[in-house]
């Protein structure tokens, strides 16, 4: 004969309590006694209890009372009942099924040793999701339910299971066992008190069962911070962790305890590191504080251990089997890393309560990545198809470049690009070394884009040529992908995005970039749509987007400083117009625009000293790559001049469509902004094009971006017009034809003219093989090339120049001396000049190509030069006498070293802040009100909500 007393403990749980009470009273096995405890609720929970159970059955306790304490208090006052007495503990947010009690009691009858029974717990909100079917703990003190996050209950775990512990929510416990174990430990007011109790019960020889036929729905309100915890000031996370450790250490026998302490100290350190990396410093602090709190109070621990001494060692082997296996820790770590990479944040699936796992957010560019439908799905995605088409166009246009690229002895180069030699390690060395031995030697710090390129090369398995080829030759498809993905949030009409991406990818600037070998602008063109996409989020106040924006802007600025100026001016305008409207925008803008300044500081100082360099980009500066008398019509048609640019009329369709977009009255704001960017970019382009050697590619790309956004944003109206029929339909067709004329014409022109020239992929190594083989280390090869009445020279030490070495500045005095000597050599007027060259370490003189007769005569007339070879492909002379390699000057590179470390640290910091890893939102969905509501919501909102809650001291 059983007698069951249900104890419902309520604390500010009015929003769940009503349902809970109804469920308690509706049990198919009627309860013998019901007691309600109100722990000082302020939301009317007490009244609800009184209404349901009657005032005599409700006990009111102070607000700081814990769950265990409340039960103790009830049982102290409750006289024993006849027969086998059971106590059914219920939280205010736990709704038992109508058959729950019946099922629990039936299971208790089956097993006489069963002293504690628990129901199957499911989620309150999504009622099919399993929360717990018995809980165990890992050796590091983590809760382990043995369930997958958000696992649905399909009966897969059903049955009566012998478990280590069950939750106090719905726990049915024999009253004599409660008294024997002296119940829940009041030192653990919240969390893990259930584990402690069950552990002790098992140690005492009782059984703990989970009965899946009994079901209860649990909101886990405290663990999920649905309500404030009054028993402790501490964060529930820290409390949970501390209590977990405490229970573990109190119940383990001594040998296992020592191991556990070691394991936890080590594990916590690792975890803290990971959490810091994942930008969750609060979690890391909680982790540390929890461990410290347990280990910092040895007396308390000792007291607890003393109380549990009885049978602890004997019961241990049985309990050990119930702990989660050691491999679980690794699995969890793997899950965590996986989750981090997937952008879901480190989901501590077992340590925290289940449903806290966030629903994975939709990622940027997801639709490019979705492959759920297999091949068909991929190839029917417009983005993929567009990318493939652009790739085919690129291959067709670059058909002459590819053979040289694939052959082993051809080097990619020409235009602004030196023949690409060397690997990632060479670039790294160039970036970090204090003294550059290349050329005449230089003490200037290598420009930061060298580091970016070195990173890219490292990704390309150390092959710089591969990285450069992908970025430069693949610039068109990359720009297309980038533009297509970046406009996802701006433009919802897919055909418009396809048109926009194709037009952007085939702009005159892009084809000009490929032909001119302008690696810097190529990178900026690919990044520009990303800037635009991130900028919309920065304007919306997203901090993380701001960090990402800053990082990418740093990359773009390192290659083309002008990008920063353009972005900064637009950003300033944005701050003026949006800064007052939305909170945090100004701060995000400061982050976005400040990051490049901080990361590139010394280099920017150099640039600022020579303002002309702002207009130049990385690589070689050659007047032949620009059109010095660029016409006004070219500029207005977004054509930057120089090699590889289609005729002016190619972009007429784009301009026409963008002008037509002005006539539509809806969304005029966006069109106006787009045109504003266009006019601004155009103005800058005009200024840039009037400066020697400067190429207005980047400002025109800005201008084109503005135009494309203006036109693309209105494109959905085409569909409306087409549906309207008649004249409008005709107009719509016309506009479509005009719009698509631009990318089609650009592609056709590009393919027919080819992408090469001056860019070539069959360049030979500037250092002849013979010179490279016969030079001692440090000895140089002087390359002379008469061109346009001038003799250009460059000094190479054992290998061709690396990308970035052309931006190093050798000491002026040495350059002057050397230039005079080279002039003397090329004139053949005397023999002393060779000695000057030899003292700078020149061993060979090479003249590539057909050697100019005058130059050949001059070199042949030098007694100290011995001709090694002369042919159609070039001449090579060797310095016969003594060649001294100048020793590198003793440099104190402390400042440089320090800056490199600082830069690296800053970069890591920005990377961490910008990476999507910690996209954990504190869920602030109002639980009872709208279970279905789940929208993109910033952290800001959550923090704001929390901040507004008044913190009432307990």
């Amino acid at each position: 004969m059983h007698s069951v007393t249900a104890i419902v403990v309520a604390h500010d749980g009015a929003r769940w309590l009503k349902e809970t009470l109804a469920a308690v009273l509706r049990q198919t096995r009627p309860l013998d006694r019901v007691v309600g405890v109100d722990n000082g609720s302020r939301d009317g929970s007490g009244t609800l209890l009184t209404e349901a159970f009657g005032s005599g059955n409700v006990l009111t306790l102070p607000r700081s009372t814990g769950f265990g304490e409340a039960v103790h208090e009830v049982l102290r006052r409750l006289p024993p009942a006849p027969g086998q007495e059971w106590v059914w503990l219920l939280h205010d947010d736990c709704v038992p099924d109508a058959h729950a009690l019946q099922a629990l009691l039936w299971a208790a009858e089956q097993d006489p040793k069963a002293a504690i029974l628990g129901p199957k717990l499911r989620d309150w909100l999504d009622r099919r999701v399993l929360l717990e079917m018995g809980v165990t703990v890992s050796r590091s003190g983590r809760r382990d339910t043995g369930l997958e996050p958000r696992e649905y209950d399909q009966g897969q775990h059903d049955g009566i299971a012998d478990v280590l512990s069950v939750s106090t929510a719905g726990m049915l416990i024999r009253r004599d066992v409660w008294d024997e174990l002296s119940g829940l430990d009041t030192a653990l007011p919240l969390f893990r008190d259930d584990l402690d109790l069950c552990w002790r019960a098992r140690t005492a020889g009782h059984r703990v069962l989970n009965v899946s036929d009994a079901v209860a729905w649990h909101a886990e309100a405290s663990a999920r911070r649905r309500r404030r915890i009054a028993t402790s000031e501490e964060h529930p996370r820290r409390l949970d962790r501390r209590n977990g450790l405490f229970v573990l250490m109190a119940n383990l026998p001594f040998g296992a305890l020592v191991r556990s302490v070691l394991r936890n100290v080590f594990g916590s350190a690792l975890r803290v590191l990971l959490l810091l990396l994942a930008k969750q410093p609060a979690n890391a602090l909680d982790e540390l504080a929890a461990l410290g709190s347990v280990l910092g109070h040895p007396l308390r621990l000792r007291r607890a251990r003393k109380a549990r001494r009885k049978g602890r060692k004997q019961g241990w082997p049985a309990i050990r089997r119930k702990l989660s296996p050691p491999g679980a820790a690794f699995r969890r770590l793997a899950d965590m890393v996986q989750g981090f990479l997937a952008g879901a944040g480190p989901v501590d699936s077992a340590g925290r309560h289940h449903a806290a796992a966030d629903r994975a957010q939709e990622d940027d560019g997801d639709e490019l990545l979705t492959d759920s439908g297999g091949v068909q799905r991929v190839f029917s995605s417009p983005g993929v198809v567009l990318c493939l088409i652009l790739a085919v166009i690129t291959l067709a246009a670059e058909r002459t470049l590819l053979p040289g690229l694939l052959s082993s002895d051809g080097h990619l180069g020409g235009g602004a690009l030196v023949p690409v030699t060397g690997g990632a390690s060479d670039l790294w060395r160039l970036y970090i070394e204090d003294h550059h031995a290349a050329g005449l030697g230089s003490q200037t710090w290598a420009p930061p884009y060298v580091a970016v390129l070195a990173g890219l090369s490292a990704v390309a398995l150390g092959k710089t040529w591969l990285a450069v080829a992908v970025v430069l030759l693949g610039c068109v498809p990359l720009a297309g992908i980038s533009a297509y993905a970046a406009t996802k949030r701006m433009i919802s009409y897919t055909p418009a995005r396809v048109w926009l991406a194709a037009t952007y990818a085939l702009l005159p600037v892009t084809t000009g970039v490929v032909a001119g070998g302008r690696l810097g602008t190529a990178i900026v063109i690919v990044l520009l749509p990303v800037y635009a996409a991130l900028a919309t989020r920065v304007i919306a106040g997203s901090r993380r987007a701001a960090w990402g924006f800053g990082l990418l802007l740093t990359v773009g600025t390192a290659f083309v400083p002008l990008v920063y100026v353009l972005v900064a001016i637009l950003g300033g305008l944005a701050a003026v117009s949006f800064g007052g409207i939305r909170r945090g925008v100004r701060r995000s803008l400061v982050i976005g625009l400040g990051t490049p300044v901080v990361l590139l500081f010394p280099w920017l100082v150099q640039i600022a000293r020579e303002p002309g360099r702002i207009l130049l980009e990385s690589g070689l500066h050659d007047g032949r790559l620009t059109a010095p008398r660029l016409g006004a019509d070219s500029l207005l048609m977004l054509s930057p001049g120089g090699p590889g640019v289609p005729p002016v009329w190619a972009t007429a369709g784009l301009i026409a469509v963008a002008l037509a977009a002005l006539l539509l009255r809806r969304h005029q704001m966006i069109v106006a902004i787009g045109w504003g960017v266009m006019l601004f970019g155009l103005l800058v382009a005009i200024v840039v094009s009037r400066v020697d050697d400067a190429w207005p590619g980047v400002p025109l790309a800005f201008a084109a971006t503005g135009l494309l956004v203006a036109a693309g944003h209105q494109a959905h109206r085409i569909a409306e017009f087409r549906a309207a029929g008649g004249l409008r339909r005709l107009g719509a067709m016309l506009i479509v034809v005009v719009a698509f004329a631009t990318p089609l014409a650009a592609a056709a022109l590009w393919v027919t003219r080819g992408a090469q020239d001056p860019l070539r992929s069959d360049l030979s190594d500037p250092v002849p093989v013979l010179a490279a083989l016969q030079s001692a280390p440090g000895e140089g090869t002087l390359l002379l090339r008469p061109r346009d009445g001038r003799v250009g020279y460059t000094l190479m030490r054992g290998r061709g120049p690396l990308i970035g070495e052309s931006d190093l500045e050798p000491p002026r005095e040495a350059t002057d001396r050397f230039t005079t000597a080279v002039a003397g050599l090329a004139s053949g007027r005397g023999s002393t000049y060779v000695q000057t060259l030899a003292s700078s370490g020149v061993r060979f003189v090479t003249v590539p190509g057909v050697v100019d007769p005058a130059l050949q005569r001059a070199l042949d007339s030098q007694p100290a030069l011995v001709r090694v070879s002369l042919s159609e492909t070039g001449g090579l002379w060797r310095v016969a006498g003594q060649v001294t390699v100048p020793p590198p000057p003793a440099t104190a590179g402390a400042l440089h070293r320090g800056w490199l470390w600082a830069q690296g640290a800053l970069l890591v910091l920005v990377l961490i802040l910008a990476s999507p890893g910690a996209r954990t939102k504190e869920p602030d969905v109002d639980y009872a009100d709208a279970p279905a509501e789940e929208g993109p919501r910033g952290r800001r909102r959550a923090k704001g909500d929390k901040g507004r809650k008044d913190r009432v001291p307990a």
Partner: protein
Amino acid sequence: MRRLIENRFGLLALVLVALGALYGVAFVSRPAPAAQVRPQAVRAPVESVTAVCPAPSGSRVSVVTPDQEQQSQEQQNQVQQSQGPGSATLSAIKTPEEKAGGKDDVIDRPGLLWQREIAAGGGPLVVDATGSMAAGLESAQTVRETSGTQRGLAGVRCVEPGAESWFVGPGPAAAEMTLYLANPDAAPAVVSFMVYSGEGPVLSERGNGVVVKPGQHRVIRLRDLAPSPLIMALQVSTRSGRVAAAVKAVLGEGRGVDWLPVAAAPATRVVVPGIPGTAGQRELYVATPGERDTVVRIRAVLEDGSYALKNKETIEVPAGSAASLDLSTGIGGQPAALVLESDVPIVAGLKITGTGARQDVAFTAGAASVDLGSVVADGRAEGKQTSWLVLSAPFSAATVEVRLVPSKGAAPAPVEVKLPAARTKELRLAPPKGSKGGFSVVVRPMPGSGPVYGGRVLDEGAKDGQLLTAQPLAMARTWALVPPTVDAPGAVLP
């Protein structure tokens, strides 16, 4: 304002106005078409010269460095001044080990002709000049024999060592041809020869890879290399190092002797200047080292004009071979220059035969124009000896300043010679009365002149026949054109 914005066409109008304004700005700011200014090479005095006189034994060696000319202000701006005093040394050729040779002649006075008769015996002489003595240094060796197989006047410029030299003249079957090689440098020279005969190129095992070590000199009889050619073009080239080469032709008793001047490297247009107005035979030699047959068009530039010679308009030269053509009836007795044009590169030379019972010969050859001036070291006007200067302006008119530099006494005032386009002029060089000994000639085209070619001819009316030697004007080593140089990392790109 508000109505403007709300109007459907308001924004369009604003944008169009802005675009128009930007168009205007771009249009106005478009720079004027700048004429491509080709950077000019700067003239700078040569700072060091090395020349080798191939076989001076028994000859008179003349060395001269003309004074620095008076420069106009404008010219001075684009000229780097020389670097102070210098000297020229004459020494027997030496290996680098035996540097301390004792009795070298040192010349340190520019503006005066230095002449000396060299005793018989001994090898080549090396003229090394630096500093102010280097700019324009010219040296020559001239020998005069009145009997024997060597009877005649035979003179040659002392040449700088180089990587390639061409000689065009009679072949070893027609004359005793001797090649003199000398290497005054510090690096060994590996020399190859190639002979193009009337029947085609003569391949010889022995003509390859002759090593001339530093300080060494060699004398090679061309008969050993190629015994059969009657006419030939000889290419002396080095695979590595440099060598000074000279060829002497001895036609035999009573038929004359002389050195072959270095001919201009193969080109599609070759000018053979310096043909004197004396009577006698003129025989043209043309060779094409290429692999295509060619027809060379001949045009004579004479005192009264420039025209093709009747029946001698062209000469056919098979690929890789030499051909000759007798031009005596065309240009004999007239000062002349020949302009040869062909579709493939050719080299050319000319034999001048003197008059009299016992003949002497002289050779001239294709030469470059003397844009920066020219110096001839040896000029004589003693007794029956006469020096002639034959100047031609085959393409456009030119004005040339001719200056004599005597070995003693004051220099006479320079003479200005006007050359109409496509005309040749012959000048008799006479030193001022009272000055004794030889003199040098400095030829300098005035600014604005077309290309000028020329030669100096020396003859002596001996009783048994005229003695004769000739020398085409070579570009003076006064100036070097120093090109503007720039440290350009882009030089690695074609």
